């Protein structure tokens, strides 16, 4: 962003670095790479968002109006993949790049060149996903879960998607190795693990989840690839395989993936809420333990996505009990955040609004998660719009709201310029209201029995679908306002004060000037 470019001028003289586009292609600076990740994620958010609006447009009325069912399925598939792998995950890797070195007092990430490569894999992966629409047969219309054996029926777009998943996985694994190494080896003297800002803790744990889960996904899609082209029968009963095996492997990745997305969001919120409450985070140690507990539990609950495949009753009960256990550490986190606000001295700038919005709606999503964890209720609600509502409360009101909170929170530090507070608040309220109009009613649709991933629906679902579609368009437009607010701040925002937020107290606020220079902590800070 512009402030970084300004400071870059005098900072790079001893590297002989490039200017222009080549600067961004060759950069090994964690701040540049963080910026790249964030802009990439925003572009993907727009691409995935357009697909979401196409879906809501078709669902505005019963009947087939705009897209044939095949194309509709392609949209639902690519919307999911692009939002999960292209928008949300890279956004938080962007935060990690910017923040982790500054928060632990390190000069940069441990493997600077690897960092460049883990970013530059992403545009290629994203291109493969988008190009798949233009191949014969189009993009795969199988849902983001890519369930076998439907994948076998797809055209070459399926293969592009599989390769894209490989690249995305590689990028995530390399990024995670980098984060783990940075946190474990490059903390400033005196910054012991239990002194780190919680954001670093949540990312450390997330990085371990990624290293453990992404290869499993790569394995699953590779098995699909060989089933498609090389005569294997991993997921084909006629050859001795089992289609349900794919689901087991996928969700062994897929459930940790939920926390890969949620934990860094918890981390951001755990920085924002204390800052605007002017009070230390309540129960720091229990936050660390709760995060670890969630991470460990996330590996033994995967089959709760598969209650209807026909598991033995013992299996259903085990996964039900294990899943409900997650409510305990998650509850601890929610209680800690509320206790942090309790007796604080609260102000409600945009980051805090988004953090409170997160807390409120994520908890709602957590409760619907508890409802879904119970086998008998899930048998009714599985693969209905209730599930769609549930995971959008967790992914959008959870992860995306936290990402917005983080952007508004750190933008002044990164760019040295303030965003427009009034417009920021407008962005929050519009997002909050339209989000609920879009997704709250989907709970009703699910309860009443509307299956997910259908391009057309029985007449009794019409009214809530109309409401939801209107909400979706409002939500989409509100995000253009976000883009405007950010661009306005970067170009012509008021100069940020040295300490934009009086309550923020991690190293980047206390030990570094605003805006942060291109290189920071070349000598480690002295910690009391």
């Amino acid at each position, binding site marked *: 962003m512009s402030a970084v470019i300004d400071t870059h001028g005098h900072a790079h003289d001893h590297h002989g670095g490039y200017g222009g586009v080549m600067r961004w292609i060759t950069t090994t600076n964690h701040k540049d790479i963080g910026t790249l990740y964030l802009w990439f994620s925003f572009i993907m958010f727009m691409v995935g968002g357009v697909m979401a609006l196409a879906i809501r447009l078709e669902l505005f009325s019963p009947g087939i109006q705009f897209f044939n*069912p*095949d194309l509709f399925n392609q949209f639902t598939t690519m919307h999911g993949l692009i939002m999960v792998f292209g928008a949300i995950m890279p956004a938080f890797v962007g935060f990690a790049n910017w923040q982790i070195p500054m928060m632990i007092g390190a000069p940069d990430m441990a493997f600077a060149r690897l960092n460049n490569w883990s970013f530059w894999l992403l545009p290629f992966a994203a291109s493969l996903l988008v190009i798949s629409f233009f191949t*014969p047969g189009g993009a795969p219309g199988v849902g983001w879960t890519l369930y076998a054996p439907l994948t076998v029926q797809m055209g070459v777009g399926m293969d592009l998607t599989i390769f894209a998943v490989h690249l995305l996985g590689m990028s995530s694994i390399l990024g995670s190795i980098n984060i783990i190494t940075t946190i474990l080896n490059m903390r400033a003297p005196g910054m012991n693990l239990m002194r780190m800002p919680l954001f670093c803790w949540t990312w450390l744990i997330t990085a371990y989840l990624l290293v453990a889960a992404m290869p499993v996904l790569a394995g699953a899609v590779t098995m699909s690839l060989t089933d498609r082209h090389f005569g294997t029968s991993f997921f084909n009963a006629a050859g001795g395989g089992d289609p349900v095996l794919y689901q087991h492997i996928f969700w062994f990745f897929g459930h940790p993936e939920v926390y890969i997305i949620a934990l860094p969001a918890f981390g951001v919120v755990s920085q924002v809420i204390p800052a605007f409450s002017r009070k230390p*985070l309540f129960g720091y140690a229990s936050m660390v333990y709760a995060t670890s507990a969630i991470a460990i539990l996330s590996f033994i609950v995967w089959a709760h996505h598969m209650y209807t495949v026909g598991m033995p009753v013992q299996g259903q009960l085990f996964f*039900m009990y294990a899943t409900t256990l997650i409510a305990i550490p998650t509850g601890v986190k929610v209680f800690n955040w*509320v206790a942090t606000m309790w007796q604080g001295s609260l102000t409600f700038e945009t980051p805090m609004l988004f953090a409170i919005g997160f807390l409120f709606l994520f908890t709602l999503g957590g409760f619907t998660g508890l409802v879904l964890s119970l086998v008998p209720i899930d048998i009714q609600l599985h693969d209905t719009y209730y599930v769609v509502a549930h995971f959008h409360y967790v992914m959008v009101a959870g992860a995306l709201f936290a990402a917005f909170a983080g952007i508004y929170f750190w933008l002044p530090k990164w760019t040295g310029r303030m965003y427009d507070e009034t417009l920021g608040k407008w962005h929050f309220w519009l997002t909050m209201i339209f989000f609920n109009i879009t997704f709250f009613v989907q709970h009703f649709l699910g309860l009443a029995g509307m299956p997910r991933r259908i391009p057309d629906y029985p007449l009794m679902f019409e*009214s809530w679908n109309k409401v939801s579609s209107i909400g979706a368009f409002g939500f989409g437009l509100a995000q253009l306002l976000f883009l405007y607010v950010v661009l306005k701040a970067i170009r012509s925002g008021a100069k940020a004060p040295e300490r934009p937020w009086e309550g923020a107290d991690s190293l980047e606020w206390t030990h570094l000037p605003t805006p942060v220079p291109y290189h920071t902590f070349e000598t480690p800070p002295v910690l009391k």
Partner: protein
Amino acid sequence: MKACKPARGIATRAAQLLAVISGWALSGLALAAEWNLRPAGSKIATEIHDLHEYVMILCTVIFVGVFSFMFWSVYAHRKSKGHKAAQFHENTTIEILWTVIPAIILVIIALPATRVVIAQKDTSNPDLTIKVTGYQWKWGYDYVKGEGEGISFISTLATPREQIENRAPKGEHYLLEVDNELVVPVGKKVRILTTAADVIHSWWMPSFGAKQDAIPGFIRDMHFRAEQTGTFRSQCVELCGKEHGFMPIVVKVVTQDEYGKWVGDKMKLIAAAADDPNKQYALDELRTRGEQVYAKNCVACHQATGKGMPPAFPPLDGAKIVLGPKDEQIRIVLNGRPKTAMAAFGGQLNDVELAALVTFTRNNWSNKTGEAIQPAEVKALRK
């Protein structure tokens, strides 16, 4: 008067538009009565409703409890009101309490849930066993044990394509109507075996609390016991390709007497409708029959125009396969095409239907082979 006409025209049009939008938005809300689980039609569905209500009440109480603390804080502990921040950051007692109490709440939720799970999984001693097969994109029903044993039929969407494509007003049961309903007797334990011929589907009847994926190559089971007569409607709930949204499930629950009568009629109908595969049929006879078969089985992909939706769903009009050697085409229709959505119709259609279908495609649109395919030719190519 004349000068201000355009302006007034715009204003009037805007007002009309506003009225239409708001009126329609209000009517939408007024119609939105569908917001909870469908009325239960079996004991298990009732138990699921009760469990859901119980959990929702607990969740609501906890949610309101927790967030009243937060909103009190938002209201009272504001800097703008001059509230000074306390600096406490831990309290072992309260942290233990808010770990242990949720754990206890989970136990009291898990207990009733476990009871329902076990009841739901008990498929022993059924009165009637029906095998359900998911096809792209219809359901096959085989009565395998109990009264009606031997009945077997395919159940396909009955909503006309004109309604789906908005060329005709939509009927009351739009997308929830089929040509052949599944008929079961009231009060009897029905065991459903699910499987699939191509990809994974999922059979769901919300009113009975019964949902089970239909997995190709495997048989899974579930059961329900309908407590009242009536017609119950639902849809496939596992994404199974292009027409996933168009394979409804309709169950008609009838009294024992009506069921007995239905079984008798159905048996007679099957006997009467049995096609004679040894007969020689005329071209026109085959074409007419073939058109009906095509409309039920092929039109979703290959389209009424025969132009298909290439490249995933190829055209038949002018296609090499259709105009080429007939044996090759018959083989494809019988056995399907691996790794595509082209299903194997050998198991779904009889020799006469298949012969009629192939004859139709070879003598429709611009295809004019003049060949009449006889059932015996299909029979000869069956493996």
